[in-house]
């Protein structure tokens, strides 16, 4: 009888562990960074409890990822696209329809952030622009966006909220597109939103699907 109870407990544990890992994503971890993928299984796997639990377990894992720190310090240097680069390699002259985006495979923790795009305010090059923050990959979504003229101070700030599953399954990407004859992206970065910004942030707005490139 004792052995039978032992068997029931053990087999329940085996079944529980099996179900949990069956629906959890593929976790690919280094010491400082982790990424998760569902390559060729139905999308609803990502809506299951094991997926959420796995994402929560690893949520703070990327908090001190060296790559993210490097990207944050010089984000515009890691943006790539057809636009002409300045001498430093970190400024981008955006002609009509030209887009720069990046950085590659950026993983950050879930939370509320503010992305900042700085455009040079030279009178000859101040066309309207579209800037976006999005998650790339199979579950990619646009997190925040702005289209219009560059403000007088040349600075566009985009608050965005990176949800748990978006942070787990996607990589964050910043994108700038020229909508006029010329706009020069001089700098870009992101920071965590302040408490005031969090309080003012609009309540949940439905994310849009990221347009395919």
């Amino acid at each position, binding site marked *: 009888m004792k052995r039978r109870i032992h068997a029931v407990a053990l087999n329940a544990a085996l079944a529980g562990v099996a179900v949990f890992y069956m629906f959890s994503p593929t*976790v690919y971890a280094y010491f400082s960074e982790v990424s998760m993928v569902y*390559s060729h299984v139905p999308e609803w796997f990502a809506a299951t409890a094991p997926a959420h639990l796995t994402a929560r377990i690893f949520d703070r894992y990327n908090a*001190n990822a060296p790559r993210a720190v490097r990207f944050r310090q010089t984000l515009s240097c890691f943006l790539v696209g057809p636009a002409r680069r300045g001498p430093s390699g970190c400024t981008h002259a955006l002609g009509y329809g030209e887009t720069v985006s990046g950085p590659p495979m950026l993983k950050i923790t879930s939370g509320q952030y503010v992305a900042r795009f700085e455009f040079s305010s030279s009178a000859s090059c101040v066309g309207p622009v579209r800037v976006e923050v999005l998650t790339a990959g199979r579950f990619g979504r646009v997190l925040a966006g702005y289209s219009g003229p560059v403000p007088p101070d040349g600075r566009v700030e985009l608050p965005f909220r990176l949800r748990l599953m978006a942070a787990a399954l996607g990589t964050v990407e910043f994108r700038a597109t020229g909508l006029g004859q010329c706009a020069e992206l001089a700098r870009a970065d992101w920071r965590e939103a302040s408490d005031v910004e969090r309080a003012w942030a609009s309540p949940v707005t439905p994310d849009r699907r990221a347009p395919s490139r």
Partner: protein
Amino acid sequence: MWFAEASVSQVREAPRIRVEQALLALFTIAGTVGILKGLPPDLIDGSEYYWVLSYRHGFIKRGFVGTLVRPLLERWSFDQLKPLIMTAHIAACLWIVYACYRLFRWALHGERDVEARITLTMSFLCLMCSQLMPTLAHDAGYVDVYVIALVLGAFSLIVKERYVEAALLTAVGPFVHESFIFVWAPVAIILLWSSAVTKAGVGKKLLAAAMPAVLTAAVIVLHSDRAVRLSIEAAPLSEDTKGLLITHIFEQTIPSAFHHMMVYDFRDDLGNFAIAAAYFLLPAAVLIWAAAFCYGRAWPARRTTFLVVVLATLSPLTILVLAWDLSRFLAWSNLAAFVALIASGSRTLLPPTRRA
């Protein structure tokens, strides 16, 4: 009378065994789902060198696979070869699922206790659902799947007491990748313990246990820096990749890798290591529990054997003092726990005690 009892018993056993075997076959689907979950659309960045570096300019470590495919690369470009590499990768993943299935089926055949048989069946499901298959599938282009396929092939020979053939098969592993020795470690530990306990076939068991270690040492000693530089220069790789290959892989020594891991990875990210280890090793822990439940009563020197099983399960993780691909190596412990589970129930490796 005895015959009558035996035949009744066989009639009762037969359907039950068929159900468990049918379940085992069904659970291979979980392994296939795991493969699908991790399989990337293309080869992983940084995996190309396994296929383009060969022994053409002299003996180098990790040059075996490249030497095998070199005749193909003389006809086709590397990009044209990619679909073939991807197909071979998928085939190897599926073979690993099949090999695990065969080993569990073998274990089921030798087991008459109903609870143990159910537990073995569920253990197979647990292994197939663990991060082992997704992680292996994810690393398309890496040679891990071939290393593990070799280990499972040799282990299948070990449980059939074909130690010399197993030793010959393991001889290939270190030439594919030196990490073979870490994946083989659980089998070697069980073989050493088996030699100590049974005192039977000691020479053959030691040969099978030690062959990869001896050959790994030979690969490291015989590796030519000059040959690898020439091979990298001639390879169809970007200049950036060539530089990274030399500095990050081939110029690395055991002391420098160890120093890097201790100074950067373990010191700075110990918390992350703990999180990942807890997450990845859970199935291994449950498989050890299953081993103790199914075979623990029959183990010789029960407590020591339990420690040997735990040690065998954790043994592949010793690679983490030299290399930083954390999840890739943590997943190996699930495989090691499975090897320890099957081996600890083998009547030839660890004969049951009389009391059991």
